[in-house]
């Protein structure tokens, strides 16, 4: 039952995010555009590149979709409304998101095309940049909640949301999340300008539809992870839990999408330098501060 509800909510969320992205990128807010473009993709001819690594070519998008769905599986939408409440949900989320990298490398390597392969390897460099920044803030969050279970983490923010409790971690996590979902300005694997679509370059038809859908799922997953870890999950006054969940998810997703196109694109070398020289230092400082606060002032 709850699984069906969550899948439905996920579908709605993906559609909404697609609408938002269209609005952010093309500046036109049209509610039907995602549906029409999806139909167009499904109807289009499905080209299979020559001497392609067929297995990877087919498996890449599917694995990407699976990774996104798995990461959604540990997000509590409302009290009890969660697919599986693992005791180590936060870690599981990381593990699922790690496979985004594998899927993109496979999808980039599969079609035996230069642009795709460069896009895939670029994402590896991007991953090396954001990996630490997505794990360390979560560590600080788990330190406060004294548990890795996402539900516990949400409940631990009843008194004060983590966005106020550890703002450094919040900023770092959002930046890293934009890296995971290769949103602009960190959209190197599918760098629109220089790579002609990068990983997506060789994909057409239904495969491309799956790829885009998986990307939407991942955006939703990261938005929901952000509000679960930092914005108090379903907690909130007046409205019921699921409503807060919906609002926060769309809010975070909108913020991520609107922020991107207004910034210049970041080279992966620059991104690496920033996140290792500055980001990791700040993340460590964040962990230290959270530990000290947790010891000194019990909130």
């Amino acid at each position, binding site marked *: 039952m709850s699984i069906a509800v969550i899948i439905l909510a996920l579908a709605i969320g993906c559609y909404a995010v697609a609408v938002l992205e269209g609005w952010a990128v093309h500046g036109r807010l049209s509610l039907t555009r995602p549906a029409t473009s999806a139909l167009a993709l499904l109807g289009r001819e499905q080209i299979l590149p020559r*001497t392609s*690594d067929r*297995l*990877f070519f087919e498996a890449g998008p599917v694995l990407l979709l699976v990774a996104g769905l798995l990461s959604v599986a540990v997000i509590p939408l409302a009290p009890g409304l969660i697919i599986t409440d*693992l*005791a*180590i949900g936060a*870690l*599981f989320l*990381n*593990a699922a998101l*790690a*496979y985004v*990298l*594998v899927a993109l*490398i*496979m999808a980039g*390597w599969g079609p*035996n095309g230069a642009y795709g392969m460069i896009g895939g*390897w670029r994402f*590896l460099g991007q*991953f090396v940049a954001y*990996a630490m920044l997505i794990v360390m803030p979560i560590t600080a969050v788990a330190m406060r909640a004294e*548990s*890795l*279970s996402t539900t516990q983490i949400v409940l631990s923010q009843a008194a004060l949301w983590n966005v106020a409790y550890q703002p450094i971690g919040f900023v770092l996590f959002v930046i890293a999340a934009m890296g995971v979902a290769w949103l602009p300005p960190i959209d190197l694997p599918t760098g629109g300008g220089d790579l002609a679509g990068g990983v997506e370059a060789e994909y057409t038809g239904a495969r491309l539809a799956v790829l885009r859908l998986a990307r939407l799922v991942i955006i939703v997953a990261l938005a929901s992870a952000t509000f679960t870890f930092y914005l108090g999950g379903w907690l909130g006054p007046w409205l019921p839990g699921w409503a807060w969940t919906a609002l926060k998810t769309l809010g975070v997703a909108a913020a991520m999408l609107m922020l991107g196109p207004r910034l210049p694109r970041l080279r992966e070398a620059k991104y690496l330098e920033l996140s290792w020289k500055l980001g990791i230092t700040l993340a460590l400082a964040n962990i230290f501060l959270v530990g000290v606060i947790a010891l000194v002032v019990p909130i």
Partner: protein
Amino acid sequence: MSLATALFLAFFGTAAIWFGVVVFRTHSMVRSAIALLFSQTAIGAMFLVMQAEFLGVLQIMMMATEMSVMAIFMVMFMMDPGGMGKMDMTHQKRLSLWAGGIGLVAALVVIWTAGWQGPVPDVPGADEQARLLGRELLGRSMFIFESAALMILTAMIAATMVAIAPQEKDSQ
């Protein structure tokens, strides 16, 4: 319950072994890296079946990264990463086969003749396990843990030093 566990273990174990064999049979280097990744992932799944949730998920997570890095190194260093011209990249095959076979057989003999006894005790819940592991790491085994961390740091620095390009005196 025990039967289901055994079946799952056997399934994932078979998968792990099969992928492990694929690693050395395929010609495409990226494929072999990804095969190794899936073999390790299957092992992580076996951890999960054995109710070691934390370790299982950790294994699955770490291996995804490690093997992707492995893959890019393959592509960088192999003369034929795609495995198009099916060139043979092995030597002393017979010796290796014998060594592997003997190792396998010896291990199997030891395992099957050891005669492990006893009813299987059951384990605490996952959250309890995580708590116990944390207490262990930051309590009794803290020193070992810290030294492992130090080892990693040293290896990072050493690897960077080895890999960094030798540059002229006047270049900095």
